[in-house]
């Protein structure tokens, strides 16, 4: 006799009920294990087993969800939803996956770096120059991060009149890459584009900085219309986002120094240039004054030369004129006769000292 009747279910109903129960019990589960049998089908679907010393469970995800390279033997942490397939196979449908072992993080980093380098994302010729003196800057960071505070303090110390738009995002954890990507897309779609996008966060462990090695984020940085400056972690940390950016800063503080000139330095430069022009102008005025003085002296000399020439000519004429003076002729003993030289007429005779009147008594032609 059966006290409580067992419900009779169709197979598909049983599967649906099981999935409902699983979903209720494990909305999302995080599991750490080692990857085995990793394979990609039709370039779309990823299958592998997650195992430890004694257990193994099948996993499924899409290629799109694979943000970092994974390979057999890697230790990973997944977040997933358990599911019974229509064929009765139990598997985990993965939401996120990331390498968890230190060596595995490094391995994943190296694999992605090699892949993206082959595609040319890190080539030096792709790098654009950052604006020399930007006035509109976009910042992507967490406003709670120490690195952000350092950045803001330094730009305020170094320059004035800047317009800075800050996109507050997570810079750590599995949500970080997508949030940074959305912020990048937001700034790149603005009607008035910022002149540079600065992505910053302070130091952290390799795992803390792993969002900046996310493949989609690295590609988004490389594709940005607006030049990018990435300052993540400490000087010794290099992420793939750093490599894909137009310029890498060693730290957030260094990012501020690279993007903003130091106002005292600029003011010194301005004063130097204005003084240089003042000296140039003064030299030019002196040069022109000297040239003018030279020309005036030349004109005065020319006038003097002409004056002397006129004086010489006048003196010469005066001498000629002097030779023609009748008094001088009389002084030499000659006499001057005035009147009509006809017999019986009276004429006046003038010598140097005397004047006489005489009668003409004889006239004879010389020829």
């Amino acid at each position: 006799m059966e006290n409580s009747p067992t419900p009779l279910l169709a197979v598909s109903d049983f599967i649906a009920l099981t999935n409902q129960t699983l979903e209720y019990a494990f909305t999302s589960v995080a599991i750490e294990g080692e990857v085995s049998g990793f394979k990609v089908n039709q370039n779309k679907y990823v299958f592998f087993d997650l195992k430890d010393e004694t257990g193994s469970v099948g996993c499924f995800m899409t290629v799109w969800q694979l943000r970092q390279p994974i390979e057999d033997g890697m230790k990973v942490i997944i977040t997933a939803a358990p599911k019974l397939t229509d064929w009765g196979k139990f598997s985990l449908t993965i939401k996120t996956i990331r390498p968890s072992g230190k060596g595995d993080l490094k391995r994943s980093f190296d694999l992605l770096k090699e892949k993206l380098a082959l595609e040319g994302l890190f080539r030096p010729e792709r790098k654009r120059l950052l604006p020399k003196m930007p006035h509109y800057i976009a910042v992507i960071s967490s406003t709670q991060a120490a690195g952000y505070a350092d950045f803001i303090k330094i730009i305020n110390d170094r320059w004035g009149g800047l317009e800075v738009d800050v996109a507050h995002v997570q810079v750590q954890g599995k949500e970080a890459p997508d949030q940074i990507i959305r912020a990048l897309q937001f700034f790149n779609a603005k009607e008035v584009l910022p002149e540079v996008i600065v992505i910053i966060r302070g130091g952290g462990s390799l795992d803390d900085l792993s969002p900046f090695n996310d493949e989609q984020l690295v590609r988004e940085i490389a594709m940005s219309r607006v030049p990018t400056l990435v300052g993540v972690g400490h000087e010794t940390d290099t992420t793939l986002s750093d490599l894909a950016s137009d310029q890498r800063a060693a730290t957030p503080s260094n990012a501020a120094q690279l993007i903003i000139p130091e106002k005292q330095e600029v003011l010194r430069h301005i004063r130097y240039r204005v003084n240089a022009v003042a000296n140039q102008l003064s030299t030019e005025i002196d040069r022109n004054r000297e040239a003018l003085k030279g020309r005036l002296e030349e004109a005065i000399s020319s006038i003097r030369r002409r004056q002397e020439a006129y004086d010489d000519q006048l003196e010469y004429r005066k001498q000629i004129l002097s030779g023609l003076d009748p008094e001088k002729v009389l002084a030499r003993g000659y006499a001057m006769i005035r009147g009509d030289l006809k017999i019986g007429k009276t004429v006046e005779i003038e010598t140097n000292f005397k004047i006489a009147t005489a009668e003409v008594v004889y006239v004879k032609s010389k020829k």
Partner: protein
Amino acid sequence: MSKAKNSITEKMAKLDALLAWFDGDEFELEAATAKFIQARELATSIENDLLEVKNSITVLSEQFDRKK
């Protein structure tokens, strides 16, 4: 964008152009003094702006934690 910020950038560009004029082919001594006075006043104005004008930092209200 703020007027102050534009003003500094524009003034810097104007100053660059003025100073470049002194080295260019269009240089004329007759106009140089007036240009120099203009450049000196502009430099003083930029200095005042840089020392007095603050940066405008805006944390956007947009949320980036989910797809729109």
